[in-house]
Structure formats: C-alpha cells, structure tokens
C-alpha cells in the first residue's frame, strides 16, 4: 500500500493531466483546416492555343514593329519574323526564320500578363488602350489600333481574355 502522501500526490497529478488533456482536446476541437486561397491578383489560365491562332496574328501584324512592341525593352514585347527575335539576330536568315515554339510561348506570356489583378476582360489594358477614345481608349502612344469594340480583332481579343477556348476551331470569333 502506498503512503498517504504519495497517494495524494498521484491524485493531484492525475487531476492535472485530466485538465491538460481536456484543454488539448478542446484546442484540437477548435482547430479548422486552413486552405491556401488563390492569390487575389493571380493571372488567369488563358487558352494558349486560342491565343496563337486568334490573338497572336493581330499582335504581330499591328504591334510588332521595332520602334513599338518589337523591342525587348518595351512592355508587351512581341517576337515576330523579320523583327525582334530570341537569340542571335545577326543575319537575315536568322531573322526571317519561322517563329519558334519558345517565341510563340513568350508572346503568349507577354499578353497573358495583362490579366494580372483579376481585371475584367473589357477593362483589360491590352484591349482598352488601343480602342478609340469614344470606346474608352486612351494613352496608347501608337494611337487607336482597333476601330471599336466591334472590330473583329477586338472581338477575338475580348473572347480570349474572357477565358474562351476553342477559338481556332470555329469558336465564337
């Protein structure tokens, strides 16, 4: 038989353990799973195939000149045949070679970056800046490139920015 003092000490220890266990249990019960929410300014996953056939031709045709966006130091850098290229550009043959997959992808990333901040497609700067003033265009050094929101090029761009895919296959162009 244990001495009285030892028995009493064990009872106190047991009570303390019970309290601690209760606290731990309550704390555990109060816990909730914390999910990592997407960053508020995350860039949407816009369809690259649709970009390549519906948007990139416009960027190359209307934006890629070397004093404009065909300049590596300018925003919305656009690679195109005969103008800005990735890598060696010292010969005519290198400059006029077909665009590589890496260059197409870089053009896609340049354009997709404008989706930063979760801005609405119709307010996206890549669309908005090049519209006429009456359609909300402004501040584009190269002026109004699109004739309006109903310009086929603007429609394609807006559809792509809105997250549409399948624009190469008879989608809503």
């Amino acid at each position, binding site marked *: 038989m244990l001495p009285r003092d030892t028995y009493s000490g064990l009872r106190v220890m047991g009570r303390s353990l019970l309290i601690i266990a209760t606290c731990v249990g309550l704390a555990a019960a109060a816990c909730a799973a914390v999910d990592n929410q997407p960053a508020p300014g995350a860039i949407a996953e816009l369809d690259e195939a649709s970009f390549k056939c519906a948007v990139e031709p416009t960027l190359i045709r209307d934006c890629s000149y070397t004093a404009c966006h065909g300049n590596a130091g300018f925003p919305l850098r656009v690679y195109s*045949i005969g*103008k800005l290229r990735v890598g060696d550009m010292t010969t005519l043959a290198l400059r006029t070679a077909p665009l590589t997959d890496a260059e197409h992808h870089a053009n896609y990333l340049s354009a997709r970056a404008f989706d930063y901040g979760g801005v609405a497609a119709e307010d996206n700067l890549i669309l908005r800046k090049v519209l006429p003033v009456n359609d909300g265009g402004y501040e584009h050094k190269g002026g109004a490139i699109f004739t309006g929101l109903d310009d086929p090029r603007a429609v394609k761009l807006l559809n792509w920015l809105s997250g549409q895919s399948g624009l190469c296959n008879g989608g809503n162009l």
Partner: protein
Amino acid sequence: MPRLAVILCVLGAGASVAHAYPTGFQFDSDPVTEDGAGGVVFSGAPRWAGHDCSVCHTNGPGRVGVSLEADPASLFENGYQPGATYKMRVVLENNLTALEFAQLGDRCGSQYQPYNRCDDNGFAMEIDDANGTPIGGLSGTNANGDCQGQAAPGGDVALIANDTAVAHSGIHHGQAAWVFCWTAPGTGSGRLTAFISAVDGNGGDGTPNYPNDMTGDDTVTGAVPLLERGAAPPMPQSGGCDASGGTGSLAVLALFGLLALAWKRRRTALRLVALGVVVASFAGCATVRPWQKEKLAQKKMTFDPDPREDELDLHMQESREGSAGGYGSAGGGCGCN
C-alpha cells in the same frame, strides 16, 4: 514636272535594331508566316493609327523631306477635277544616307562582292477622304511613262492593300523619286488628304550577312490637302462641348427657380432654390469608368501629405495581408514588386 506641294518634317526616334522591307510588296505579306505587315500601309494615315516609316526605321539624323508633285499642276492650284487623272511624283528630298553607294545602282547588297551597302529608299502613300477612307484610283504608269491606257507591268511602284495605297517596288536601288497615277473621285467628294511617308535608307550598320539594318535611317511623314475644284472650302468645325449633364443641370435649376418665384412664402422658396441646387448638382454626375481616372490615379491626388511614404506603407501592408490593389501602391501579396 511642276512641284507645288512640299512637306518637310523631322521625326525623332529611339535607337533600335531592325530589319527593312526592301520591297513595298512586303507590306501585304502575311506577318505570321513570313516577313510582312499583313496589309498595313505605313503612310501615316488615320486608318493605320498614324503608323509611318518611323515605326521601324529609327534613329535617323533628321534631315530628309518629301515633296509631292502633280501633272497637271492645277491639282494644287485649283483643286482636283472630279474624274480627272493626274500623274504624280513623290520625291525624297535630301537623300543623303548611303548616297555614296547610289551610283552602284542594283549592284549592292549581300549577293555582290565586294559588299556595298544599298541606297534603299522607300515610300508609302494614299489619298483618303474626310472619313479616312481611301478614295480615287491609283495605278502605275504605262510603257511610255504616262497615265494613258493600261499601266505597264512591273515598274518602280507597287500597288498595295488592295490597290488603296502605293509604295516603292524596290526594283532600283538609289531611287529617290517614284511616279504613279491617280484618278480623282466623282463630284462631291470634298476635301481629300494625301498621306505620305518616306524613308532614306540604308543609313544603318548593314553587314554582308544582314544588309537591311534599319537603325540610322531617316524618315519623314506629312499630309497634303487636296480640295475639290469649284467647291467651297470646308468651314472650320466648331469646338465640341462634352460637359456631361451640364445642360440637364441648368434645366433642373431653372425649373426649381421658377417654382420658387411662384411660391409666396419666402422661407419655402429659399428651401426650394437650395433643393434645386442639390438636385442640379446630381444631374451633372456621370459614371466615371476606370480608364477615365487617369488624373485621380496620380500620386499627387492622394490625401496623404507624403504620397511616397504612403505608397511604401501600403506596399508593406499589402505584403503582410496578402491583399492587392486599392490605391497608392502597386504589387500584390508576394511582396516582390
């Protein structure tokens, strides 16, 4: 040929590395699969957002000019005769760049040894109506060099963009003038504008491997008005007024003022006038879209006396809280920019 309209202007541009379009036909080439512009004409006309030769040819010394000549010269003196055909000539003035190689003619470029730079000059031109739409007919000259009958194939000019504009064909190096024909549109077409842009190439550091470098090429762009013969010159348009709601505000204020005058009790009348002012001010409100907030978005428009410090504080706050946007600073939750 009489020369009556002369434009001379200088464009400044930043340095860049570029590649030329030795023939105007490349303006029509598919830019996705080959070195082309997909139908864009670099004439400086509004339909191309004012794009001219300087969108590619950069860093020139700024000394060239361009002139437009017409035969008969009455085109510029009395206006165009509807339906009449004019022989026109675009002349690049002060063609100095690579002029030392002009005497070589076509014996230049990477295919000849020793390598010599080409004197590659070019131009683009179109004639548009007041709406910015090309008007009249452009064509090349015939075998005799005039505008009668069928245009001769080839020649020094190229009709591009579905024959709505004319450009250099790139056949002869050292060329600094181009001749073509233009048939004026019918009666009532009004004031037209000839948009011209020209380039003095090749002033760049061309090499045997890459002879078409476009840095150092001078460019010039201008517009020549063409009035219709016998038509009164267009009256200057009065300035517009875009005060949204302004008229509505005045109307509301006038209505409340009349009601106040009709009211016998002075206190109530004053209240009515005050109410009218308030309502009128709301009538002047307009929805402000994000892209119209340029000035409001400027740092100096913030309430904080030290906007730069405010920006720093907000940037740290946004980094801490994983928030983005609002006002005063750029960047998002990662804290990287």
